[in-house]
């Protein structure tokens, strides 16, 4: 791995100076007056207390913190930026690689007519990300940004080409693999005369990615260059939309797949129909051996080149979101999701005076139906899989949510969910039984007046497996527009072990003003899993005082 070199920042500065020195007609003052600096800041800090009852470990440093500052300078077609990150040391649950301070992100870019160039760090995505997506999800400690060069060029009206080359971030370093790629996107409505006003909108795309990593393995003959390609279509006709993409990856033996040489495939299809008061989304996905990293030995969320979208609902209520969330299985899964939203109009039988929204969602994910080949000593294809059949259940989630305003002062949201959660596979804990859970949530807000309101969340989770039943009660008082106060208790009252029937209490206070937000809380945080888009991080149990400051400008 290579260290991030601050000297590369000079590239951006050089471009900046060069640009200024070549614009003779304008004074430096005039140029600078057109410039704009924007940014944001975030600090998360926690004082940890040992709490043997919940398994909160002793933290030698007592206080841990994650800090970020983004600065972006823009001046006409030119922009440059940096991000400073600080982990002293990183909050519990974040990868150990986040340790220390540094400028982790710096870039410079300019645009000239049809050409747009970025050097340094950048994030990019081709299509749905099946073969290439770099992004940051700070809450997960996920950042697979590129460091290199990106060029975008509009070849013709409606036809855009994007090329990238670079290496990927892993904590404060870069992975050893080199990633090269190209994406072509064609908007038929823009490209074809007479089609621009059509009710049917069609965008076609094709992309290719190749990674290079030297073969230094004595066990196997490894492919040093691994290629992947994808084709996609996005078709919209009136209220109807289809978004489909197919991806193929050549032999890519890695730690993820046990060093098998079987090619990877992925198919993603999402259709939707949406009109006022009604929305229906149907989606299907099949990915087979599609873990794609720029370092074949990497694990967890490190150095992923691609992104396999999760076809499960992103829940927000605590028990639903963090006890049994689904993590996409990179080695293979078949997933389906249906999502229906319907709005009962005001004055209708069910809508009543203020109307009512109902959402019904069903998501399922299964293993592939595979046959093991026992060819570890020969071709190492690993297994065969059947396209239209599925194997073991990984996850099921049926949930429905009803949102209704009862009066000018009272509104509520009521949720029911039924989960099937294959803990053995999803959490990688062999032998753990599959969890079957029913969850009910009532979220009611009472508005005293324009400034004062009280929100109450009551949640229950019933299961005979794992830790048994849970209940959560939350009281949140808001004093608009700046203050809020909250009390929460999560109680694992159904745990078979009476010593583990623990209350996880928490009190918090927050202040918002003009883009600044300060939150402080004290209490227990139970162990759980935090997921965003099917990518997850294990959050260990902790206890103590938590402070968060965010600001944007």
């Amino acid at each position, binding site marked *: 791995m290579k260290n991030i070199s601050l000297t590369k920042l000079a590239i951006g500065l050089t471009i900046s100076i060069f640009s200024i020195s070549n614009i003779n007609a304008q004074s430096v003052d005039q140029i600078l007056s057109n410039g704009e600096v924007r940014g944001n800041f975030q600090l998360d800090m926690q004082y940890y207390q040992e709490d043997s009852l919940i398994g909160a470990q002793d933290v030698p440093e007592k206080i841990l913190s994650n800090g970020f500052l983004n600065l972006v300078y823009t001046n006409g077609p030119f922009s440059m930026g940096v991000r400073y990150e600080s982990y002293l040391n990183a909050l519990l649950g974040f990868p150990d690689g986040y340790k220390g301070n540094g400028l982790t992100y710096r870039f410079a870019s300019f645009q000239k007519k049809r050409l747009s160039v970025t050097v340094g760090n950048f994030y990019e995505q081709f299509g749905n990300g099946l073969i290439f997506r770099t992004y940051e999800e700070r809450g997960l400690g996920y950042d697979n940004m590129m460091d290199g060069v990106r060029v975008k060029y509009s*070849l*013709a009206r409606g*036809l855009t*080409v994007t090329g990238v080359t670079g290496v990927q971030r892993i904590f404060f370093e870069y992975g050893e693999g080199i990633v*090269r*790629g*190209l*994406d*072509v996107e*064609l908007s038929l409505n823009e490209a074809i005369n007479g089609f621009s006003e059509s009710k049917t909108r069609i965008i076609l795309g*094709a*992309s*290719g*990615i*190749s990674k290079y990593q030297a073969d230094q393995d*004595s*066990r*196997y*003959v*490894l*492919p*040093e*260059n*691994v*290629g*992947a*390609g994808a084709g996609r279509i996005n078709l919209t006709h009136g209220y109807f939309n289809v978004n489909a993409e197919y991806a193929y990856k*050549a*032999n890519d*033996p890695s730690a993820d797949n046990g*060093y098998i*040489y079987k090619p990877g495939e992925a198919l993603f299809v999402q259709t939707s129909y949406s009109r006022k008061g009604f929305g229906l989304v149907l989606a299907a996905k099949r990915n087979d051996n599609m873990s794609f990293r720029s370092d074949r030995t990497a694990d967890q969320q490190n150095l992923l080149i691609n992104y396999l979208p999760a076809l499960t609902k992103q829940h927000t209520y605590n028990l639903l979101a963090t006890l049994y969330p689904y993590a996409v299985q990179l080695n293979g899964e078949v997933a389906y999701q249906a999502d229906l939203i319907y709005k009962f109009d005001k004055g209708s039988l069910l809508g009543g005076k203020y109307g009512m929204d109902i959402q019904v969602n069903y998501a399922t994910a299964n293993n592939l139906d595979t046959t093991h080949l*026992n*060819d*570890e*000593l*020969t*071709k*190492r294809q690993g297994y065969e899989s059947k396209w239209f059949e599925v194997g073991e259940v990984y996850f099921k989630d049926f949930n429905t949510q009803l949102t209704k305003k009862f009066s000018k002062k009272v509104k509520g949201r009521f949720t029911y969910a039924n989960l099937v959660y294959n803990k053995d596979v999803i959490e990688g804990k062999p032998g753990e039984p599959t969890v079957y859970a029913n969850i009910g949530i009532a979220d009611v807000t009472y508005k005293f007046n324009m400034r004062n309101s009280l929100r109450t969340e009551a949640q229950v989770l019933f299961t005979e497996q794992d830790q048994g039943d849970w209940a959560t009660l939350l009281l949140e008082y808001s004093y608009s527009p700046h203050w809020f106060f909250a009390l929460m208790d999560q109680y694992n009252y159904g745990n078979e072990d009476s010593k583990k029937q623990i209350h996880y209490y928490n009190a918090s206070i927050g202040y918002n003003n003009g883009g600044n937000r300060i939150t402080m809380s004290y209490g227990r945080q139970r162990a759980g899993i935090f997921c965003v888009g099917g990518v997850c991080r294990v959050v260990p149990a902790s206890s103590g005082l938590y402070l968060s400051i965010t600001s944007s400008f």
Partner: protein
Amino acid sequence: MKKIIFALSIISIIISSCDKIDDPIPKDQGSSFSLDGETEYITDPSLGISNSEQLLDLINSNSWDSLDGYDNSNRRFIVLEEFTGHTCLNCPIGAAEVIRLDTILGDQLIPVSIHAGKFAEPKQTGDKYKSDHRPPSGKAETYATTFNPGDAYPRGMVSRIGGAVTPVNSWEGAINAIKDDNPKAVIKMRNFYSAASNLLRIDIEIEWLETLQEDYNLQVFVAEDHIIDWQLNITVDQPDYDHRHMLRKIVNDTWGKSLNEANQGETQKIQYILPLDPSWKANDLESIAFIYDSDVTSYEIIQANAAHVSE
């Protein structure tokens, strides 16, 4: 349209910029040549042979003494792989059982003592157990972790049946269960040895007696007999222990060479050419070849043979 074709062409180049690997298992057994269109000659990398002319020159410029292997056209030969180590106090018990069975079965049993695992590690201090009897490159350790994951000693496998080691007292029964089987293949062996150059050519011809559906690999070893060195024998540090049938070299990599499909009546000829370690005693060396089912749920050796290097 030209621009679209241009862009798609670049994508095609990127996608095709990948290495398609048809044979993932390394062949560090050396370079492969054909001199007569019939036999595949495979030379050890250390010989530095890069073309057929050099190989021919090597063969023609040396004088060779030949010794044939045994006739196994009517018998299934059996390989007994014994995991052992010089500081394993009970291993002499296993070795004694190997010798007893070898005496009973004669040339039908091919013993191989594999020094691997914690008991085979050489001592860094003192004057005992300093020899490293493990084959180089850690390949025997791969066998140990694959077949003897419990790291128990002494343990052995009879023709790798079951794909895992078994205790000493089970070996005889396992041998008796298969010793009268009809062979599915014949392995003919002939060693060509050049004493002047200390080179060995192991000539192997496989003839399939049945058509088989499984995929088979050919594995070739060199073993040395009668190595006198330290051995912990129960409670005694014995300085002059006679180590028998010690695996010295895994000639064609850990898992051997994939063979052609097993069709009845078809033959395949392979010759390995390698230098011998000057510390090995040529008179006590033996080359061993066996065919095994490459399915990792099997590993079963269906035929084997051996040939002495020098008289």
